[in-house]
């Protein structure tokens, strides 16, 4: 299995980068991109392992990409409408998730 270890390592790094990004950045767009990054890290894992496990991994990647695209559409729309309201995409500024 060439490059499997490397691929998994890369995806782990990408995932951590994404996670940390979500945790520490305040700009919603950046956070959003970090989430995408995490998704792609998972995709990479799936593709890498599909060699061993079977074709399902690659099929699953297609699903994830579809969901990611949909998510991008909805998420960006939300962010834009938030921006229209507050003229800011800094997540510290809106705490609507709190009752």
């Amino acid at each position, binding site marked *: 299995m060439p490059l499997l270890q490397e691929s998994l390592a890369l995806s782990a790094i990408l995932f951590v980068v994404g*996670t940390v990004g*979500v*945790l520490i950045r305040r700009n919603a767009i950046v956070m959003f991109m970090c989430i995408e990054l995490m998704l792609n890290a998972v995709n990479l894992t799936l593709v890498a392992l599909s060699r061993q496990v079977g074709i399902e991994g690659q099929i699953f990647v297609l699903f994830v990409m579809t969901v990611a695209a949909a998510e991008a559409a909805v998420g960006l729309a939300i962010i834009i409408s938030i921006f229209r309201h507050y003229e800011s995409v800094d997540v510290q500024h809106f705490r609507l*998730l*709190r009752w």
Partner: protein
Amino acid sequence: MVGGFGLNTVSGLAGQVAEGGGFNPFLPAWIILFPFIGFVVNAAIAFLAPNQRRRVSLVGPGVLGLALALAVINFVLLLGAGESEPVVRSYWTWIEVGHLRIDAALQLDQLSIFMALVVTAVSFVIHVYSVGYMQKDPGYARYFAYLNLFVFFMLVLVLAANFPLVFVGWEGVGLCSYLLIGFWYSDPKKSAAGLKAFVVNRIGDFGFLMGMFAIFAYVGSLDFIAVFEIAPRALQYGGAAVTMITLFLFLGCVGKSAQIPLFVWLPDAMEGPTPVSALIHAATMVTAGVYLIARAGVLFALAPLTMNVVAITGAATAFIAATIAVQQVDIKRVIAYSTISQLGYMFLAVGLGAFTAGIFHLATHAVFKALLFLASGAVIHALHDALHNAREDASEAASQDMRNMGGLRTYLPTTYRTAWVAALALAGVFPLAGFFSKDEILWAAAAHGQTVLWVIGVVTAVLTAGYITRWIVMVFHGESRVSSKARKHLQPAARVMGIPLIVLGVGSLLAGWMNVSGALPLLPEFTWLHDFLHPSFAGAESVLAAHVGEPSHAAPLGGGEGTWAVISTVLAAVAIVAVFRILSERKYARAKDAVAPTGVMGFLYHKWYVDEVYDALIIRPFQALARFCWRVIDRALIDGVMVNGTAAVTRVMGRIGSFVIQTGYVGSYVLVFLLGVLIVLGAVAF
């Protein structure tokens, strides 16, 4: 097959004939339908063209004339048929569930036809009178619509063939009474009086309803014929069941016929137009209770305890109302209390088992009491117009207060003469109507050995003669207390109002002769009413005969009926003369200068403080309780503590949680989420 609104279930207005005897009623449904048509037409006019007075004047009394004609025809047919069985005409099935079946059916027998005759005759006269009395009222059409509707329901009441249908009429007349008392609704006092009448009556209706349920539970039917046939076999004489049934029914009668303790609504009902007082609150509706007891005579005869309660209530009411009447100053309220008192006599009669005497007094009373009311209406009408034209205080309080009257006999001669006839009839002076019927009642008390009730009856008769003479004197005799300016404007009543007075006056003179007791000295025995009504009361009388025995022929203090009839008449005459002598001399202060009497007279003037006592003991505590239920139990306890309390607790828990964990920052959520994932993964791994 499918049933429904097809013709197979409604057999048309011809009705299904249950043949009995030779009596074949002539269009009985139309007796009821004519007033109803009048109601529909007048109501339509009231909404669409309220100024069509001529049409209303034609339709309103006209339909009553037709109904009266039909009643007379049926009465004559019935007379010709001899002692016939009741005829039941069933039109459609009203309510049917399981073995409960209630038809919209009329029972035509001696009692119902006689009552229908009384009702239509008095109603017709009063409708004609109303044409004059209400002529200038803006609600003319509405008035006649209500009045026609009332007669419709009253006829349903007396002609119905089963208890629930009687109840339809019973509630219907109550409704019309409510609407007519509050006819001039803009005055809060009048609308309050209407409301009071309805609510107090409702207490009685509750009794009527319970009575019906009990009858159905014990007898298994609600049709008159079936119930009265089964009851003597199914119900034990004096048993708890029949006593309960009759006490409940009697509660209904107490409400409708304004007996103790529910009489308080009737004096207030005088807020309505005077013809309404004459028709509803004197001649017809308030006597419905007497009719019901007479109709259900079999049941009452089976319950000696109830009979005693009825008789005692009647006697007590007769006495108390008469004492109150002695000190009233409102021209109509005197007669209102007199009505309560006379109704008490009727209850005394039926409570003693003298059903015919009760119905007899009902009929004569309908005539002379209607006349008294119409006469006071003529007085009020004339005085009101005069005061109005003289630009003086023409308010109701001023134009109905007898202290503002006096000496009106020269201005209103017809009214004056007919009022005397009615007053003497009420006082029981020979040979007017009241003499014969009241004598029968008093004698029934004596003959049944009810000494106390009999004495109360005689004393009340003397009081009656007294207060009605006071009434006459204060209104018509003595020095006039009407200002000289207003006196110039006094006009006698119009012909359309005068003729009904005369008709009723003639009635008051003659009505008593339909039944002359054989015991009266010098008079031919003529027991027509007894004989006529006999088939209707035969069931009840046979029960009484089996259990009570024959009444005696001597009074408790000795002497026979004839002797005591003479004595009571003499007493009444003495009272009339004495009161007349004394009061003609007295100078009354006008209403605004008058001082309320004190002592015993003050007690009577304030009507035994019954309204005040009810207000303090029932109405106020009830309202306080209702407020308490709403504010404390409903809002504070159930809604505040239990419902919103639960919500509040939840919210507080949520607040606590949110302050600690829920910061609102996306980042912190992700962090917690991540930690959670790590913990789960860790748990899986190790």
